[in-house]
């Protein structure tokens, strides 16, 4: 009895020590990491109520107050109805960001889902090859992608205009003509959207392929026995069954397109006439070029709220209560 108890105590003690080590090993770094993240978020939250510039000394506590005065909600009021250049640029950037995100999501889905479905139908020998080819742009740096597309869009030496010239058409300044547009959106914005789609579509496609592979074969067989054709099977069987994946893809794509920055900064830097100026670019310029950190923090908060609302809506609309 005593021996059993001793053994039991010993093994419990070992487990407890192991647990404590695990908890200490994981929790302490996690807390440090989180506290750092929370501090940064908290600092950004505080800054949005101040007219803060790092070039000014300000008050005694963290440089707040004094020449970095407290402005309360003035930044947000200015964003809504202000006439300053910052307010105008914010509204333009917000509009462009919404255009970008709203265009990217359906276009991305329209490309990636059918492509993933097509890839699933081809032989396994070529499947891996095509999957690799389509995924390669995702692995390429955004700056590299931007430079490649810039060279293609070059008004004089780019091959897109070369093709247009070959067929007798009029070449075009894709990234710098503010006069031209399509469907109410500037050509420069469409040009950037196309480049972004090209870089990004491989990621979602791979996720869709994984989802399609997860659909039980019996369901497809049953549908075929019931006389459905391929299109009906796709609409009635495949699409509903990959709805959780759709939700994930929609949320992630929307998030990344609301935060688009590098590809636009390199390709247009917001030109022409601010037609491609998006929120992240505006935040960056205000924070680091114009030292307007308070304003930039307020813009970041607005972006955070928008992204959160859009994500909640997507989760409500696309959520499922079942599994297979």
């Amino acid at each position, binding site marked *: 009895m005593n021996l059993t108890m001793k053994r039991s105590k010993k093994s419990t003690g070992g487990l407890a020590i192991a647990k404590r080590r695990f908890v200490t090993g994981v929790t302490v770094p996690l807390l440090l990491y989180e506290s750092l993240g929370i501090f940064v978020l908290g600092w950004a939250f505080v800054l949005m109520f101040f007219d803060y510039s790092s070039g*000014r000394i300000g008050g005694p506590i963290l440089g707040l107050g004094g020449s970095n005065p407290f402005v309360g909600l003035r930044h947000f009021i200015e964003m809504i109805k202000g006439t300053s250049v910052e307010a105008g640029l914010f509204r333009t950037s917000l509009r462009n960001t919404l255009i970008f995100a709203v265009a990217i999501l359906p276009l991305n889905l329209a490309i990636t889902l059918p492509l993933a479905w097509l890839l699933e139908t081809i032989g396994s020998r070529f499947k891996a090859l095509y999957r690799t080819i389509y995924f390669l742009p995702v692995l390429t740096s955004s700056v590299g992608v931007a430079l490649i597309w810039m060279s293609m869009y070059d008004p004089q030496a780019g091959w897109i205009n070369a093709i247009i010239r070959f067929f007798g058409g009029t070449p075009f*300044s894709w990234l710098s003509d503010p006069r031209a547009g399509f469907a109410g959106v500037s050509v420069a914005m469409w040009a950037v959207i196309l480049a972004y789609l090209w870089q990004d579509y491989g990621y979602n496609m791979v996720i869709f392929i994984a989802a399609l592979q997860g659909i039980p074969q019996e369901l497809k067989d049953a549908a075929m026995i019931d006389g459905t054709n391929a299109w009906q099977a796709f609409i009635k069987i495949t699409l509903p069954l990959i709805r959780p994946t759709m939700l994930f893809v929609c949320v992630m794509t929307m998030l990344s397109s609301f935060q688009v920055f590098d590809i636009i900064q390199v390709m247009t830097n917001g030109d022409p*006439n601010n037609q491609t100026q998006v929120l992240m670019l505006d935040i960056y310029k205000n924070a680091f*070029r114009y*030292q307007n950190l308070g304003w930039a923090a307020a813009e970041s908060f607005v972006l955070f709220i928008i992204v959160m609302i859009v994500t909640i809506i997507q989760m409500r609309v696309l959520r499922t209560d079942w599994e297979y």
Partner: protein
Amino acid sequence: MKRKIFALMLVLVFVLSACGGKTPAVPGGDEPVVLRMWVHTNNAFIAGYEPLIAAYEAEHPNVDIQLENFDYELYLQTLQTAMPAGEEADILQLFGTWTSQYYERLAPVPAEVLTIEEAQSIFYEAPIGGYIVNGVLYGMPQEFNCEYGGVLVNKTLYEATGLTYPPQWETMDDVLADAQALTQVDASGMQSIAGFHFTAADPTWASFLAGIKQRGGDYWNADHTGFTFNTPEASAQLQWALDAVDADVVDPIVFNDSTNFVIDAFFQGKVGIGYIGTWAIAEGQTNFPDFADEWAYFYLPSIQGDPVFVADSGWGLTVSPNSKNQDIAWDFVKFATTDTANATQWNIASGTIPAMPAVAESAEIAAAMPWIPKALDILPFGQYLGNMPDRDLVMYEIIYPHILNVLQGVETIDQALEAIDTEANSTFE
């Protein structure tokens, strides 16, 4: 008892010496001193700094100056994060117009090092103006950043077109006449060579503000508390630029700041006359070493009257108030910027216009940079741009985009001037 008193005194000596810290080192002293110096990454500039540092260290063997450089954008971010934390280097390279944004975090130049009056007597008005905020001097300039009036001219294109070279411009009409002859359009109707590329950001604001001044106007109100951009002089200058575009000397859709930037386009043979500051020369030669066309740098005639223009100071050196060796830091800054031999060496290495007339007029500068003597006629007319709440915002997000809109045909002159006036004045709020 005596032992106790002795021990107490010993402790007091230790405590007081610990609290007192080190005595600041002096130039030429024996105590080793390490100074950190931050500059933005520009190989030509760094090539100018390194011999200066070596020369100073040779004169002061106890001083070790460690040069650190950052890419331009990263430099801005580093300054903005390091300064509030008090972690910046002892010596900071700053652009003159930035001083009005950073002056609270900079050390004033001690009077025994250089007074404002002395500085104004040895430097040109425009470059030193950027380092004076509220009557206090915060640094010393190394260059005269002149964005106005200088142009790269492609000799090969000139001769191929049958134009007289070197250009004999008396008026801006002569420039436009040459530019029209130089302009070429390809078979599809797209401009392939711009006769006169003046539509990048810096030339656009520089010529706009100079045009206002040369026409007798001003863009500042009487007490420099606001802008006056919606004026007849500003309108006349914009109309001149629009007429030049209508005369087909440049297509601002194809040639602007983001597409076919003037340096890239010129050194690829796509521009006859390219409006840009002298700093472009070193950059163009570095980035396009295979460019075979012959070219030279000239200055444009004024729109009317004297070639009055404004300049936004130039790069120079400042000292951190957090530096423990400010006296040595200032000694080096003075050594690098006000000593004519050192300044000459730095300007030649960096390919920049000297901030001091004594250097700009020297034979060494003329031999190394043949375009500088051509600038000597206009440099004395340079006025400081003026301390703005946010110079970059006014120049690059307000003036340039609206003027480009006018030239590209998406905004009228009146609309643009009204918008520039409103938006620029809003930066004071």
